[in-house]
């Protein structure tokens, strides 16, 4: 395979080398967070984290563990850069992204370090493409200070039911209100649109509800425009965990299975629009 004809010596110059037999295992998950052009790539020995932020209120992270890659070599503790995500996705799909069985695009991603471009070697059917994408100074991702000790309410749902709810959400509503409570209505999504209000209630006994742990009644509103991109992650996922903390910050974690059945995670953090405490 052409990619392996790279001389071993070249590798010494790279601080990060990551290879995948199927580039879709990376590109699919990146599509779930592509709502802005730029993303921050952070690599550690654990794997790769890609972060996209919007207006300081929303942050999406995609985690691809080192085990997903066929090769993952990192020569520093932390490697970080900022890159144009749209361009990166275009390159990953440069062979057209057709899903002929047995045919996939192989990827070798190499980074020499600060100031160097990200080099992608892509191969499909004997054809090799080399892409060099400029990198930028990585901005510090926002720390939403969302920690599990402050989580007041948590549910884990099968994505199937949420997908339907999100596809039917009234988009004329500026906010999505999420109510979580140990008593009725348990878990409720509400919209306030031009035509009127809509509420989606999930009973805690629903067979779609895998976990229900709500300690207090909380109602929070989030800007619809911020949450809308999360539907892409929802579409890819099989399970989603919804958590709110004592400040009303929302954490959505999506469990995504890639083409080879391996698990990756995507998470979204969102600030509340305003706090509405209801008893």
């Amino acid at each position: 395979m052409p990619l392996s004809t790279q001389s071993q010596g070249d590798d010494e110059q790279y601080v990060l080398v990551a290879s995948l037999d199927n580039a879709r295992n990376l590109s699919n998950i990146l599509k779930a967070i592509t709502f802005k052009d730029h993303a921050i790539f952070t690599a550690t020995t654990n794997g790769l984290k890609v972060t996209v932020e919007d207006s300081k209120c929303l942050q999406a992270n995609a985690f691809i563990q080192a085990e997903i890659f066929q090769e993952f070599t990192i020569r520093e503790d932390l490697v970080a850069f900022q890159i144009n995500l749209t361009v990166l996705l275009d390159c990953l799909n440069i062979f057209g992204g057709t899903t002929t069985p047995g045919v996939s695009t192989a990827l070798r991603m190499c980074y020499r370090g600060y100031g160097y471009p990200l080099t992608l070697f892509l191969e499909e059917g004997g054809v090799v493409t080399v892409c060099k994408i400029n990198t930028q100074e990585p901005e510090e991702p926002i720390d939403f200070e969302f920690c599990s000790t402050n989580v007041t309410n948590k549910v884990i749902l099968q994505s199937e039911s949420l997908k339907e709810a999100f596809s039917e959400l009234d988009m004329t509503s500026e906010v999505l209100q999420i109510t979580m409570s140990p008593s009725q209505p348990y878990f409720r999504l509400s919209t306030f649109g031009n035509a009127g209000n809509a509420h989606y209630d999930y009973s805690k006994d629903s067979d779609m509800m895998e976990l229900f742990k709500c300690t207090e009644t909380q109602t929070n509103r989030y800007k619809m425009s911020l949450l809308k991109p999360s539907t892409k992650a929802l579409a890819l996922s099989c399970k989603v965990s919804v958590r709110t903390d004592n400040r009303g910050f929302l954490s959505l974690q999506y469990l995504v299975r890639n083409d080879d059945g391996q698990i990756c995670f995507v998470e979204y953090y969102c600030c509340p629009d305003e706090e509405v405490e209801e008893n």
Partner: protein
Amino acid sequence: MNCVLEGNSIKAFGKAIHALSRVGDELWLDPMVKGLALRSVNSAHSAYACFLFSPLFFQQYSLDSVREQDSGPIKCKLVMKSVLPLFRCSTSIERSVKQCQISVSTGSDRVIVQFFCRHGITKTYNVRFLESEALQAVFASHLCPNVLKAPARLLGNMVKHFHASQEEVTLSMSALRVSLRNYNEGRNDHMKMMHTEMSLHPDEFDYFQAGVDSDITFCLKELRGLLCFAESHCLPVSVHFGTPGKPVCFSVEDMVLEATVVLATLADFESRGPSQPTETPAPTTHSCADAAALPVGMHETQSNNLQVLPDVTELVESSQGSPITYPPVLMQLQCQGDNLAELCVPAEACACAGMTPPSSMICSLLFKALSSELGDDDDYDDGGAPRLPVLAYFSDEEDYPRSPSL
């Protein structure tokens, strides 16, 4: 009002709303003792549709007619766009909705539609409505000379031959055959048009009665919704009509529901093109007018000047709103004895008798005031009734997108 639907009824209800959405942008919900009526009328008032679901259609149906001021339950006018999405995906409704509950409580301005779905999911929609006038048109179909009855599939197949953009068609009936052809406004570019005509032998129909030879031209778009509904329920469709200018009525019924679509037809004038809806509030003599007229009674429950008039008639044309030219002759108010369409509005319906002159004067003045641009000597004909078309649109809406250019 409170009603509960289960199973297939939910899907049928949804399809009825789909059919009504092909007619108008608003949905009137009228809970009555004899059932729940869903109605719609197009903005030109040239098409009216009504689906009446008898109490048997529902799992539960109850009216709580406790209301301080009024007698009877609430009549709600809903914006179609807010109701249609609730019933949009009939396959997902079929798959996941177990029960649907619709309720309107007095003193609130919302219709509550609740879907109890599988997996412990409940969807609740509070849809705002405008409490409004009742909308009803009654068509005395038993008086129509021409009657056809055919399985929905037959009509569906006939209509399939016409392009989706074909607005109007002409249905011709004689003792020997029934034909359907497309109708194009009197333009001369025959070369650019495709003319389609199909003829059927009377034997094709389950019931065939050709009282008078007649060619009626009506708008197809609003009919398609009903045909779709009828086909999905495998119901036969009845067509009642008479001479051109009188409305045509398409109806289906089964044990628990009846659906009707009444369409205005073009009157038989040579120089005539499709025209725009006109609003002449006063003269109910228009209801038996020679020009294509669809009498739709709107009964104002709120008190305002218009309450002086028990009902209001709109003179409409069958098409969808191209600019009009009105030959004065069309506005002649002729009262024909065999008026088929009556206004169904509480008691005061006055079909052909005409309004008392003072009221008609009041109303026309009122409307004239709203549209002073048109102030013309031509406004009144000899009879003292307004002659010119349109002007103010009689309704609460502020914008009437297809206003004629004055």
